[in-house]
């Protein structure tokens, strides 16, 4: 199984600012994903982080708001830009060695926007 380190674990940010969340996996992985979990809700996929190319975004999520980088097979970042209180959520990084395998998750970043 993969061990995923995600930081920061939590942050309180002012509206209009941006926060970058880092995700480090302890081994090379094929796939990395970013999810959002709004208060009391389930997980919603934001995007697939593609190594060496632009991320693939799900409907309702755009690159200008959630830019993602994946410079190598073990690291990815998600930026939440121009934040508003509606962005207050838990953001989770996930990795898989391939489709149809187990997915593993970081501990999440609890973001509060004031």
């Amino acid at each position: 199984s993969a061990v995923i380190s995600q930081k920061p674990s939590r942050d309180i940010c002012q509206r209009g600012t941006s926060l970058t969340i880092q995700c480090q996996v302890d081994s090379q992985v094929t796939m990395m994903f970013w999810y959002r979990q709004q208060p009391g809700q389930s997980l919603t996929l934001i995007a697939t982080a593609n190594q060496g190319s632009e991320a693939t975004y799900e409907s309702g999520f755009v690159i200008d708001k959630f830019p993602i980088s994946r410079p190598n097979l073990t690291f990815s970042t998600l930026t939440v830009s121009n934040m508003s209180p509606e962005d207050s959520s838990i953001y989770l990084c996930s990795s898989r060695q391939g489709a149809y395998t187990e997915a593993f998750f970081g501990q999440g970043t609890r973001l509060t926007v004031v």
Partner: protein
Amino acid sequence: SQQGEEDPQALSIQEGENATMNCSYKTSINNLQWYRQNSGRGLVHLILIRSNEREKHSGRLRVTLDTSKKSSSLLITASRAADTASYFCATDFYNQGGKLIFGQGTELSVKP
């Protein structure tokens, strides 16, 4: 929406009792995975069951899959207070680039 449905949304039991959670989905899957989340933290992977499997066990956990009914269940036997958490099913559809689609989750409370 492809999102799975889980029931019950919330379940409260006494320690030592069994807890059963159900998950339904709409289209064919390659596998279905169950996860646990404690107090809004990260997700812990519990079990992956493939579409050609009917039942899997891991310790006090038992997962069943009925592809004809497009449903799965998670049974926790002899529950403990430490089992208190939210439980999510996630479906892994074919040709979706590795994306998992999560159900709404069941919030389990085990009272000592």
